């Protein structure tokens, strides 16, 4: 109740969804958008931050159209963006399997999987363009898995009852990214894209209320530089590393979108994080990241724990009738293939009951012995060989012999910068694509949908919608001598100097770990008001301590990884607080956001559609004041809101 008092007046956001029937919105919109004539396109510059699926595909496509594109990534090559690590696959409503799939079914599954917290029009468009993505990737030479007849193979994935997932062994992400990266390389060779690797965006620059550029730091020389453009796209991925331990890459960070948030872009649904059910459990305090085992493993692996609490026998010594295949028991229709949030929460429940396995008791078994008996070792190894190998490398155990131990881990953030139907944030000229936007996944993302969304945004949505914006603005350039750039550069330098000068006693990693634990314990798989209140206070204190006691080393003008980390963790701490605020205000459970106070008697998420069928878009109001809540009401005109059931 105290909460409600704190939240200032609510603004309703307009998502600019085109009129007309759902299936015709995108076609109609594509016709209605304004175009920049081919000869004029070369007069416009576009900055793209991030070179993953969304960034690279957008950059290549925009450059093909004729715009001048500058791409920035913090890694040493565009190919290393974290999209590369996606394993399982990419969904597309091709219905190649003749199993009843359609654009509408993919749309429906995604809306339902997202627990009715996504925007219908966006999701429908996503399902529509999904079919083009596969065509595009194949044309680029992406080696998808094929059947003996030479046509593309599909597999099924959590949350769907059709086989619509295209895959490339266990590294679909790498293969799709290499496709986008090759298209990007082609444009670099043509001189239409200028690539800036090892360069991190540290601020957004606005001129006359529009996004007109960014300030960057070169990670080898420390050189701080401004870049101007007519539009800026942030495709910088998710912020799962706010939890310290996640399946994200070590460098994945929120800095770009956070600094944009502080310049006026609203942050949508920050508390919606996805906890992936099948990750390799934590083995010790030194743990730096968690490794995901593709969800596709749940096609053949059976999840179980011992029926008895505290059963410390080895897996092979536990007889069949003393095992609890809890997903199959509770959800006979979907079995081990329930959506991620459901699978994760049930694993946590089993462990909370004291039935977890392994030395820490924070793991459940994923058992392939039945699949091996049924299909033979060869077939299983053909499907999952590289995943099994990876598991063996990390744990030192052979999953062909003993069941894998898995535990949920933070994997994806459905939240992100709020964007309208055109993927534009609340800052004119600033776009967000891929995981960086609050996206099409509602409160929970289905497996194999992240790759789809990243590429849909980059290849097929942004190139139209950015054109619409540019067509309505003059081609005149703003130079980086503009006072707005100078001011932003000065601020960036001052912040770095401030960080370097604190010279406290705690390292950045120590702060990061502390933040991560708070987030995991109080804003993780299950949340409650009391815990969130507590965490909020702790995070505020942590932020104060960070700015008075953090320890960095050296100078700015050098390759200095302590500066990189410090800037990112400073932003994570602030974001953590906003996530907690968001989780606290959303008095319902939906998808990945599970508030313990709001659950059905069977421990399922209990939504409150009357009060919370909206996107929470948070607005920055200053360093020491509460963020302001704005709402985008979600209208469901085509699907009926029901209690999700996978039984």
């Amino acid at each position, binding site marked *: 109740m105290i909460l409600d008092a704190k939240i200032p007046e609510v603004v309703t956001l307009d998502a600019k969804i085109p009129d007309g029937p759902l299936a015709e919105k995108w076609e109609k919109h594509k016709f209605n958008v304004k175009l920049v004539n081919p000869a004029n396109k070369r007069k416009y510059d576009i900055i793209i931050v991030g070179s993953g699926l969304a960034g690279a595909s957008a950059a290549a496509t925009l450059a093909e159209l004729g715009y001048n594109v500058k791409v920035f990534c913090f890694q*040493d*090559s565009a190919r*290393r963006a974290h999209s590369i690590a996606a394993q399982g696959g990419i969904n597309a409503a091709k219905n190649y399997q003749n199993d009843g799939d359609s654009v509408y079914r993919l749309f429906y599954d995604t809306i339902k999987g997202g627990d009715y917290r996504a925007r219908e029009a966006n999701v429908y468009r996503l399902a529509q363009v999904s079919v083009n993505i*596969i065509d595009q990737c194949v044309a680029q030479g992406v*080696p998808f898995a*094929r059947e003996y007849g030479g046509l593309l193979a599909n597999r099924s994935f959590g949350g769907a009852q059709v086989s619509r997932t295209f895959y490339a062994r266990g590294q679909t992400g790498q293969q799709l990214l290499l496709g986008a990266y090759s298209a990007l*390389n082609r444009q670099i060779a043509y001189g239409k894209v200028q690539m800036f690797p090892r360069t991190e965006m540290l601020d957004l620059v606005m001129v006359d209320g529009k996004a007109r550029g960014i300030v960057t730091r070169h990670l080898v020389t420390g050189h701080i530089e401004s870049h101007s453009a007519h539009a800026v796209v942030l495709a910088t991925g998710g912020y799962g590393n706010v939890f310290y331990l996640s399946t994200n890459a070590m460098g994945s960070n929120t800095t770009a979108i956070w600094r944009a948030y502080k310049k006026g872009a609203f942050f949508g649904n920050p508390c919606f994080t996805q906890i992936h059910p099948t990750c390799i459990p934590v083995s010790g305090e030194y743990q730096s990241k968690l490794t995901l085992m593709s969800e596709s493993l749940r096609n053949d692996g059976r999840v179980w724990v011992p029926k008895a609490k505290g059963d410390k026998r080895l897996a092979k010594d536990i007889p069949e009738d003393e095992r609890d295949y809890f997903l199959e028991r509770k959800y006979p229709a979907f079995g081990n293939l329930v959506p991620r949030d459901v699978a994760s929460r049930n694993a946590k429940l089993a462990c909370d009951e004291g039935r977890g396995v*392994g030395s820490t008791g924070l793991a459940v078994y994923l058992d392939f012995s039945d699949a091996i008996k049924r299909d033979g070792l060869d077939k299983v190894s053909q499907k999952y060989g590289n995943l099994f190998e990876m598991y063996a490398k990390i744990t030192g155990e052979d999953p062909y012999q003993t069941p894998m131990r898995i535990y949920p881990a933070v994997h994806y953030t459905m939240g992100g910068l709020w964007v309208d139907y055109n993927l534009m944030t609340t800052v004119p000229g600033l776009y967000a694509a891929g995981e960086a936007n609050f996206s099409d996944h509602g409160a929970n993302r289905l497996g194999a949908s992240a790759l789809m969304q990243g590429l849909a945004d980059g290849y097929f949505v942004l190139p139209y919608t950015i054109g619409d914006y540019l067509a309505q603005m003059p081609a005149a350039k703003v130079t980086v001598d503009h006072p707005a750039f100078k001011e932003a550069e000065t601020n960036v330098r001052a912040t770095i100097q401030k960080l370097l000068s604190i010279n406290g006693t705690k390292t950045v990693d120590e702060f990061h770990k502390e933040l991560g634990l708070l987030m995991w314990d109080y804003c993780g798989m299950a949340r409650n008001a009391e815990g969130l209140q507590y965490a909020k206070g702790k995070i505020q204190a942590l932020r104060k301590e960070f700015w008075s006691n953090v*320890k960095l080393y050296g100078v700015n003008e050098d390759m200095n990884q302590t500066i990189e980390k410090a800037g990112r963790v400073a932003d994570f701490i602030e974001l953590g607080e906003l996530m907690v605020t968001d989780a606290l205000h959303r008095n319902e459970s939906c998808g990945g956001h599970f508030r313990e106070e709001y659950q059905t008697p069977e421990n399922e998420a209990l939504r409150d559609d009357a009060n919370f069928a909206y996107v929470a878009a948070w607005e920055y109001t200053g360093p020491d004041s509460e963020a302001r809540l704005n709402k985008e009401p979600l209208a469901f005109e085509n699907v009926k809101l029901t209690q999700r059931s996978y039984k």
Partner: protein
Amino acid sequence: MAGNNPNSTPMNLTLKVWRQKNAKTPGQLVTYKVNDISPDMSFLEMFDVLNEDLLRQGQEPIAFDHDCREGICGMCSMYINGRAHGPEKGTTTCQLHMRKFKDGDTIVVEPWRANAFTVHKDLSVDRSALDRIQQAGGYVSVNTGGVPDANEIPIPKSIADKAFDAATCIQCGACVAACKNASAMLFLSAKVSQLAMLPQGKVERKTRVENMLAQHDAEGFGSCTNIGACAAECPVGISLENIAMLNREYIAAKVTSENIV
């Protein structure tokens, strides 16, 4: 905390790590002691522990490249005890675990060494030459949109699988690091073969191989003398068959392409 293995006794190790301020300053090996290293730690987690110690003591942490820590981004790049990515076959540095070492071991860690890879700092090197090789032709020239249906051209599974094998290259540069000649031929061949095998890539196969090899040579990489160290040390098992295919592609292109300059 107990690890995954019952017999995970902590280890004490001596590290000799290459420290180099920047590309212009010569570097040297510096000795560090690390204690209580769990066998379940990854090699890079052991470096994290060392770096935290250094920082607390007011010393400069060691710069090294890493990102995904699951063996796919290709960013990690350490030459460990005379081997690219260390002693375990088919494994990147980030996936190498300390259980591969023994208590009391001395481990020497150096950056990838090749003139085409300049050292940025300590263990971090510049591998942008590999990007430039791909920019010279490692793509199929199709624009977004207007492509045929994905199932229009069937591709035999055996060919799709072989192309996939080549496509698994993670561009880490271990092949260059391990090669006596600092040649990037295994990397180049993986890229050329993947596209040359697939119908979509066949259209530009001649210009592709000519341009990509020219870029490879211009970057200052050495030539392949079929030693095979690259394939032996490749963390994803790219095969030497790709280099044979590259040679074939190159010979055929030079003999038959329209390019006469």
